[in-house]
């Protein structure tokens, strides 16, 4: 089935008709777009809608997210990719490419000059205030020399088509430009879901660009090391583009690190790994300039590395882009760019810019004041919406305030002509709509040239009339197709060619922060599983027994509920003084233990904590894992929305959750290598399960119950960790405490027995790297050895001994308590030895400078 283009383009334009990429003013199709639109119209509307849904689904499934602060939809918002790409034809791209190369080189020369001789200022080509009043001009970076042939290694430019039909430069991004990874993922997804769209169209591929990107990182290493150690520095999982940081880390195969993974010693930068400090040569950073070094730059920054700038000065590390390059994100430069271009190259700018007036000049300022309604006024050093004034929409009061602000610090403002940029077709619901677009392009240094990515990231205004295009405010993206006159190869799989990958090959090199996150992932996951299973067992009992706390048949349930509070450490809970109400209606408390994210010890809280560790590690996880984990979150969101909390519904939820958790844990074991840190995850998982198991034993096995009660409780205990079948298989007998202890505590072969778990923790800890200064056995080894020695000496007869009044087994309780303490100490010692965050960064003097 096909669709008539007329139907797709029905109501394409809103009231305001702009220059459009695809439809000419006489409503005929622009020839550049013809083939693509033909390919589109070969599908019927239903198919197109289905394809758009499929892309949405794929993005969601692959966990392509963009974090939006204060977004009601939650932190990780799914990345939106529209099925209709944006097209630039070959000869136009040729000009754009030339223009971007020229601009990149120009900015490179500007930044060299600004932090060097400052001839541009001395010769009066740039007014000093454009640089000196820009918060991105970092005096600390003055006169730093770099070994790379270019100072600016990555440059990104936002382009939009202006009224003259040419592509104009709208923004320059020079600190830590984002979007490259999203662009690649966009292409990959579009190609996967809609291969037909590419039919008979030669679209340039960008895989080669990423190859060069990697080479650029390698070449940047000081002392021309052949095998430099490269890391990707991220502000962390809360950053908007964290997905991309992790994506680039997996694509390029370099460790993704936080500021506190790195440390400056002896004039060099080191990565804290499990074994030792490992020297780092190149940092590809996604942290903004001022946060990079709390010693010399923003003192309240925890995202950078203390003392980093001095290492840069001594040429012992390369940072890409160099710290200080933010001064080029400067709309104050625009009015002077053409003069600078002529100064350096004796030629005009190839790419037009938006006409701009810098208010630091008297004549210009007067002109701006006179015609202010026609302008968009900006701070030269801020691009956020709060520093952007669309004067046509401001009332007189607001205009007067703005004028006053400009007069107070005129050099800080620039006024720009209001430009209407072109629109392009966007598939919305079941038709096409004209939307404003902005194309982000990427340029990198390649030897002494600049290379442009043949493609890019196109962002689309969220509504038809919207002027402001930014993903930070939510919005849609498009794939950017650069057409080629030559036949292009089919898309190469985006998985990285392994030949130039320097991956972490050894557990010794595992960043200690990653190790810590893996350990805690294991602990939280263990906790969610044990809690979910235990609560499910209780719910099953409640529904079996038509629970009523007043009947004796429910006596065992009261004990089991007490134990629930103990196991989850959510006191007072069922053990509190006035617990009758809770015991009469336990479902309320159980629901709180499952769903209350803010309650320490609850399932939701453990899952949330796991979620945080999980995001910090997402470059390690496979797509399958992402899918399964995401399905758990969706299951819970859906359940909470349905808002029906009954024993059957909650039980069903737990059944499904437990299945998924187990699938997820299986995936972890097959997706991560031991040397990638799986050991740490295992240690965490086993430790948590062992600790909760001990707590369960202490609550349920220490008291001496009568026979019937004993039976009920033992059965519950075994079924709460799915050991009932094993018990029956092993003992084929009536449930007895003696046998249960033998199986769950002392059995050497049964993977769920405490003895087995402790042995396993011991084995895994033994495989962790040694640091020289801790002797031949680490403290955590000693502690876990002690625990193992202790449990191996336990004797069932002694454990069964009752105290004089025959109410409880003191010996059993004491032994369990000791084991629990030893495990806690092992865990603490492990943190101290391997994670070592015991030191906290503080300023010698709290100066509290608002440096921004």
């Amino acid at each position, binding site marked *: 089935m096909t669709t008539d283009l007329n139907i797709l383009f029905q109501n394409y334009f809103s009231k305001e008709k702009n220059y459009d990429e695809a439809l000419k003013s006489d409503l005929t199709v622009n020839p550049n777009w013809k083939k693509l639109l033909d390919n589109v119209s070969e599908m019927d509307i239903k198919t197109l809608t289905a394809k758009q849904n499929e892309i949405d689904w794929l993005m969601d499934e692959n966990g392509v997210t963009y974090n939006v602060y204060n977004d009601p939809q939650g932190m990780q918002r799914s990345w939106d990719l529209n099925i209709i790409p944006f097209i630039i034809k070959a000869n136009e791209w040729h000009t754009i490419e030339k223009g971007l190369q020229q601009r990149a080189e120009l900015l490179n020369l500007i930044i060299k000059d600004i932090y060097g001789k400052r001839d541009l*200022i*001395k010769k*009066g080509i740039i007014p*000093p*205030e454009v640089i*000196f*009043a820009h918060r991105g001009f970092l*005096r*600390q970076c*003055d*006169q730093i020399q770099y070994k790379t042939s270019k100072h600016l290694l990555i440059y990104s430019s936002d382009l939009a088509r202006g009224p003259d039909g040419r592509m104009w430069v709208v923004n320059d991004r020079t600190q830590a430009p984002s979007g490259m990874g999203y662009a690649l993922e966009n292409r990959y997804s579009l190609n996967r879901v809609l291969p037909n769209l590419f039919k008979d169209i030669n679209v340039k591929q960008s895989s080669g660009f990423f190859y060069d990107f990697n080479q650029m990182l390698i070449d940047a290493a000081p002392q021309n090391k052949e095998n430099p150690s490269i890391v990707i520095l991220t502000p962390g999982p809360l950053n908007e583009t964290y997905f991309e940081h992790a994506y680039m880390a997996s694509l390029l195969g370099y460790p993704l690190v936080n500021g506190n993974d790195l440390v*400056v*010693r*002896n*004039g060099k930068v080191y990565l804290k790994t499990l074994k030792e400090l490992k020297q780092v040569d190149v940092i590809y950073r996604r942290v903004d300039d001022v946060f990079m070094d*709390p*010693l*010399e730059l923003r*003192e309240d920054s925890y995202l950078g590395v*203390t*003392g980093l700038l*001095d290492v840069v*000065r*001594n040429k012992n590390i390369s940072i890409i882009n160099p710290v200080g390059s933010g001064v080029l994100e400067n709309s104050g430069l625009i009015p002077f760019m053409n003069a600078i271009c002529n100064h350096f190259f004796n030629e005009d700018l190839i790419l037009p810019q938006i006409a701009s007036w810098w208010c630091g000049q008297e004549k210009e300022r007067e002109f701006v004041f006179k015609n202010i309604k026609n302008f968009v006024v900006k701070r030269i050093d801020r691009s956020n919406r709060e520093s952007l004034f669309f004067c046509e929409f401001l009332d007189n009061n607001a205009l007067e305030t703005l004028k006053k602000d400009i007069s107070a*610090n005129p*050099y800080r403002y620039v006024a720009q002509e209001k430009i209407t940029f072109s629109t392009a077709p966007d598939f919305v619901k079941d038709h096409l709509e004209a939307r404003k677009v902005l194309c982000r392009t990427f340029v990198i240094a390649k030897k002494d040239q600049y290379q442009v990515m043949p493609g890019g990231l196109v962002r689309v205004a969220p509504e038809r009339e919207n002027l402001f295009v930014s993903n930070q405010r939510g919005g849609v993206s498009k794939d950017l197709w650069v057409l080629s006159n030559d036949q292009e190869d089919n898309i190469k799989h985006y998985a990285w060619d392994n030949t130039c990958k320097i991956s972490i090959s050894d557990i010794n090199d595992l960043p200690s922060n990653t190790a810590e996150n893996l350990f805690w992932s294991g602990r939280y996951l263990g906790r969610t599983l044990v809690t979910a299973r235990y609560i499910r067992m209780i719910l099953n009992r409640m529904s079996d027994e038509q629970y009523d706390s007043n009947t004796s048949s429910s006596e065992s349930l009261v004990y089991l509920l007490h134990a629930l509070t103990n196991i989850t450490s959510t006191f007072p809970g069922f053990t509190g003084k006035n617990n009758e109400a809770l015991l009469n209606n336990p479902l309320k408390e159980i629901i709180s233990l499952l769903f209350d994210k803010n309650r320490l010890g609850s399932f939701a809280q453990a899952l949330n904590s796991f979620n945080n560790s999980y995001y910090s590690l997402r470059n390690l996880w496979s797509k399958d894992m992402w899918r399964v984990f995401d399905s758990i979150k969706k299951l819970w969101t859906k359940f909470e929305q349905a808002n029906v909390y009954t024993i059957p519904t909650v039980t069903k939820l737990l059944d499904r959750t437990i299945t998924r958790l187990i699938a997820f844990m299986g995936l972890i074991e097959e997706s991560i290598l031991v040397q990638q840190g799986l050991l740490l995850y295992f240690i965490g998982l086993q430790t948590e399960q062992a600790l909760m198991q001990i707590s369960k034993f202490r609550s349920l096995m220490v008291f001496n119950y009568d026979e019937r009660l004993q039976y009920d409780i033992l059965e519950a205990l075994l079924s709460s960790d799915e050991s009932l079948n094993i018990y029956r298989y092993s003992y084929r007998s009536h449930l007895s405490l003696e046998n249960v202890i033998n199986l769950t505590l002392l059995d050497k072969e049964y993977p769920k027995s405490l003895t087995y778990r402790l042995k396993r923790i011991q084995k895994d800890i033994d495989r962790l790297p040694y640091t020289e200064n801790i002797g031949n056995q680490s403290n955590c080894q000693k502690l876990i050895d002690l625990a193992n020695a202790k449990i191996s000496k336990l004797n069932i007869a002694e454990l069964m001994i009752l105290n004089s009044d025959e109410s409880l087994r003191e010996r059993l309780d004491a032994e369990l308590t000791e084991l629990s303490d030893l495990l806690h100490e092992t865990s603490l010692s492990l943190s101290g030895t391997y994670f070592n965050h*015991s*030191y*906290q*960064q*503080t*300023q*010698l*003097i*709290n*100066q*509290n*400078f*608002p*440096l921004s």
Partner: protein
Amino acid sequence: MVFQVSHTTSYDYESYVTFCHNIATLKPKTLCGQTLLDYKLEITPKPTEITERVDFFGNYITRFSLQKEHKTLKVTATSKVSRNFEAQPNIDDVPTAKNITLADALKALKSNDEAIIDARQYILESVLIAKISPEIKAYAEVSFKPNRSIFDAALELMQRIYTEFDFDPTFSNVATPIHEVFKAKKGVCQDFAQIAIACIRSVGLPARYISGYIETIPPPGKEKLIGTDASHAWFSLYIPGFGWVDFDPTNNQTPKNQHIIVAWGRDYYDVPPLKGVIYSTGSNKMHVAVDIRPFNEVK
């Protein structure tokens, strides 16, 4: 006149510091009328690494780090400085500059002369002197008037701050914003210098912050106690046609031989005597002792 200055900063940490990175701006400049004859920086425990460089403003910056656990840190800078203010250019010798009015000065500052371009950055907002309030501007305009000499205006501003502000070391610290100081009309030398700078910048003139020392003379007949001096700060105004002229609002005088310049910048942020990042869990106690005396009196 030759002075010996010793400036000791010591820290007692509540718990062990595993390592620290620090920056000291303690080495006096050599400039017209002031020569650094000798300088020594002693740090205990001994730093693992120590380097010196000249910063953007031309100040000496020492960067050092300690990589062994320690519970105390002591940094002592000892400088021998010869001071002869008579060798400096004197504004009295350049009446055109001494008499330049605000209106003319503002016009002169538009030039693209290299010295003027350099001075112009000191008109701009800086880290600690930002968003200057209309009140501060009004305070400045009492002295700075279009047809009045900016030198006279600065002299009067200095006197006004000296008389209208109380010296009160308990009121402010390095983190106190200038607008709070201005409201309370009390603070220390650093606050007075920054208030004056804010005033001067509010009328469009360049002003910079000077960090240094002042020799205090004991009351007649009394022996001078060791370590009772303090590090000092004042401001400097750029007068087109002449250059920078210093004013000390804390002591109501234009600096002569008693003032020793260590460093200058846009405000205190650019030239803190000692700063650093430590890795530790506890709090710390700081103690500073400064001693300045003529070299022949040094025992």
